């Protein structure tokens, strides 16, 4: 009887803790399937934090008008975000903006081996991780750019990145 109880507990915990992911719908064609059973979900004025025991991620929409207090990036935001990860794209920006992009890239401190650019359908995904405890994902979804900040390892960054889906 005891063994039967243990076995059923094991099966149910496996089933409920790892088998299911929840969906976070971010736009008409973008969703993220995130691991089930976070410790908490917190909604701020413009962002959402999903927190687990040892890591968390946050989503917000990149606002080109307010990203920098003194620079309005409207109209330049897509090229600017791409330039953070790509030196060639950076060199095509106006000089002043290339300097800003370089400073941002330096501050992010991404390990070059972790920088990835790929597509999921029409979505363009850019990721990087500093190989310590911070990573970021930008998702270019037509004219909207989604920003996801991960406080956690590269493993967790990859987990979220691979679960970005088109709807």
């Amino acid at each position, binding site marked *: 009887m005891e063994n039967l109880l243990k076995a059923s507990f094991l099966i149910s915990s496996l089933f409920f803790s790892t088998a299911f992911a929840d969906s976070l719908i971010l736009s008409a064609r973008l969703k993220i399937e995130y691991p089930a059973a976070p410790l908490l979900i*917190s909604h701020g004025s413009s962002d959402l934090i999903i927190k687990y025991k040892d890591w968390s991620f*946050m989503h917000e929409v990149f606002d080109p008008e307010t990203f920098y207090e003194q620079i309005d990036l409207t109209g330049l935001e897509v090229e600017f975000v791409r330039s953070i990860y790509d030196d060639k794209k950076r060199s095509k920006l106006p000089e002043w903006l290339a300097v800003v992009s370089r400073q941002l890239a330096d501050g992010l401190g991404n390990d070059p081996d972790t920088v990835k650019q790929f597509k999921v359908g029409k979505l363009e995904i850019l990721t990087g991780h500093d190989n310590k405890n911070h990573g970021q994902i930008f998702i270019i979804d037509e004219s909207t750019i989604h920003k996801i*900040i991960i406080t956690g390892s590269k493993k967790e960054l990859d987990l979220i990145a691979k679960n970005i889906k088109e709807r």
Partner: protein
Amino acid sequence: MNLYERQDLKDFLVPLYGERVKSWHMNEQLFNLTYELVAESGLCSGMMDFVPRTMPYGVSPMRYLAKEIRGIFLRTISQNKKQYIACIKGVAIKMRSQFDEAARGL
């Protein structure tokens, strides 16, 4: 933190994280994260000058720094923020969710 220190901290964080910082209650965790942010931004020329001293690993800067030093640190970063904002933005983005979690008591 006294009222002036809270205001200096808020003044420093608003350009980094936006107007919503104005509604945050400045607490010890936010101070400690700010200290870490400035220390991490060492690549910004001159930024390390603002970090009062090397911190033993794992200690709370808020508790470790003498009150006067803490006040000077906050005043200095607040007064010099415009000079360094672009340079520290990358580190600020990395730490964004930590700041939000601290502000919301998560």
